[in-house]
């Protein structure tokens, strides 16, 4: 499989969570072609398949969700490889999630959530499920024991890239099917502005510490010069450039930043606590061992 990638070619893996993903990477493909960088992309229907394919050599860079990053990092550790985050969006740094309740419901502090029912997004959504669950646990509220969990399993495998789960959680809250709901800060603002959460109808019960979102992940063995060229081209993309701006706008950033992994601790703690990827990791490491032997 590894032989499918030509020398001096970046083959990027990305998850097709929305049709616009094709537009985005076709645009980047044309841009990189203009810059004389060999570039192609492969789309996956879910992040687990992408991470596995990355290890199998189908792609040599993966556009990973934070959970997919941790999957890659942990899988690498199991099979004796090394994963690195090489670049990320400015808009993926320092996110927070919030837990909100209905105004006037008497729920104002985290402690008030004890014994209540909270709506979340999909099981694998870092922002709408895993990080809020982990954070609540760190505040002394164990899911299932101290509060009931309602999940919205929309687009499982896409790690919450699809906004549907959070919107359902917000509707559950407004329509009083649950006592509280978890979502990313930006969606709380967006749901307020678009009327999903009528103005003044919710109170913020708590806000998680900051965390980071997606990154471009590579594994050991990628050609250093090729990777440098790819990363430098990304970091050189300017919002001032009219040819690049539409791509950045579609992908939702103003500029690319060098990758950092300091913002994944909250999620790392959460999945450790919840055992989210343990079973997958066992299977994937068995597969990867088989592959490499």
């Amino acid at each position: 499989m590894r032989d499918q990638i030509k020398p001096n070619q970046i083959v990027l893996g990305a998850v097709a969570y929305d049709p616009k993903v094709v537009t985005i990477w076709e645009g980047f493909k044309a841009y990189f072609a203009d810059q004389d960088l060999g570039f192609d992309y492969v789309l996956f229907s879910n992040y687990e398949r992408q991470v596995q394919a990355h290890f199998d050599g189908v792609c040599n860079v993966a556009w990973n969700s934070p959970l997919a990053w941790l999957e890659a990092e942990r899988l690498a550790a199991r099979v004796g490889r090394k994963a690195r985050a090489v670049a990320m969006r400015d808009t993926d740094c320092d996110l927070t999630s919030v837990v909100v309740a209905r105004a006037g419901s008497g729920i104002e502090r985290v402690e008030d959530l004890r014994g209540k029912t909270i709506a979340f997004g999909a099981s694998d959504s870092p922002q709408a499920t895993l990080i809020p669950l982990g954070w609540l646990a760190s505040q002394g509220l164990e899911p299932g024991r101290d509060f009931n969990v309602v999940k919205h399993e929309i687009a499982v495998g896409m790690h919450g890239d699809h906004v549907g789960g959070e919107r359902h959680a917000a509707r559950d809250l407004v329509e009083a099917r649950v006592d509280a709901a978890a979502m990313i800060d930006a969606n709380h603002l967006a749901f307020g502005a678009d009327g999903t959460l009528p103005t003044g109808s919710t109170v913020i019960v708590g806000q998680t510490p900051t965390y980071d979102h997606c990154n471009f992940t590579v594994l050991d063995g990628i050609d250093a010069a090729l990777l440098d060229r790819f990363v430098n081209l990304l970091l050189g993309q300017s919002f001032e450039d009219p040819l690049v701006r539409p791509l950045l706008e579609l992908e939702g950033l103003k500029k690319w930043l060098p990758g950092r992994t300091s913002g994944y601790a909250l999620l790392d703690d959460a999945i450790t606590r919840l055992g989210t990827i343990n079973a997958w990791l066992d299977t994937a490491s068995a597969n990867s061992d088989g592959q490499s032997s």
Partner: protein
Amino acid sequence: MRTVDLGALGLDRGAHLLVRHALAKAEVGARVQVRGSDPALAIHLRAWARARGHGFEPGPPPIVIRTSLEDGRWCGAVAAGHAARPSEQASASWGLAARGARVEAGLVPLEFPLATRDEIWTDDAARLYARAAAAQWDPETAINWAASCELPDAVEDAVVQVMTYLIENEVAALIIPARFLARIHPHFREILQVLAIQAADEARHIEVFTRRALLKRDAPGLSTVGGQSSLRTLLEEPDFALASFLLSVLGEGSFLSLLWFLAEHGPDPITRQITTLAAQDEARHVAFGLSHLQQHAAREPGLRARMANAVEQRFSALQHTAGLNEEVFDALVLLAAGSWEPEAIARGFDAVVALRQDMDRGRRTRLARLGFDAEAAERLSSLHTRNFM
């Protein structure tokens, strides 16, 4: 430090306008303190600033640190010419922007085949549009449709036949400016406006002539191959100047005489009223054609030769067709006569002969205004289609 106070207003209800306003006044790198009583303020502000590339500190009170990333959108933006006067050449990269607007760089070029000022422009356009806009009339109320309209059967038939002929000519006069309108760069706004209102005029003419044709009859009259062949040569003319010349100067110019004729000799008040109103509109169409062709001819010395050629070519294309159909000619005579009395027919016949002379005089006058000498004007007028339009 700069401070902006949002009061109780939340970012989910428009408070971002105040923040944006404060940031616009601050220099790059400046810290703007945001105060307000909305409990979600710091949470929403973080998300808002992050999405726009601004820095954020949670405070309290929260602080937004202005960057220049958002300003990058206007890097390389250009003005779409000057608001007051159109440019010599309109750029495809201005797209649909208002004249003089600042256009973001990177717009996919929008090609309009007619983008050169000399080919289309006249300084009279704004004035002609204003006049046209002020002179719009409502077919429902401007005409007394209840007026008595009892004509002998044959005269009514003649009116219906003339209306039938007028309608197909009006359709051509609607389609041609409408087609060119879509090919002209919108930078030349006034020209688009004139052509648009001209098309609206023709739509109204079609409306009133149809209504008159069907006033007493179930169907309009006859449509001939000869008449339609003549109009087809107009529709097929791809050049804006030549199409304007053939349609507006020669065709609608001749039609002016015809409409005045009908306004004078029409046998019933409704026919006289609708042709009077249509003639007023047509006069503007002719004026616009003359005006932009005069300016165009002054810039392009070869234009007159091209116009003369177009008349000759059209003449040879049409010389084996019937020209004005007998039904229309006879109907005009009978309509002007008003009865079968031989003396009345004689009067009607003389009136139609006078009409053709009047049309010829009008064409020659307009050709002279475009710079043709008397001899050329006489020859070109004589070669004009026998279908009038």
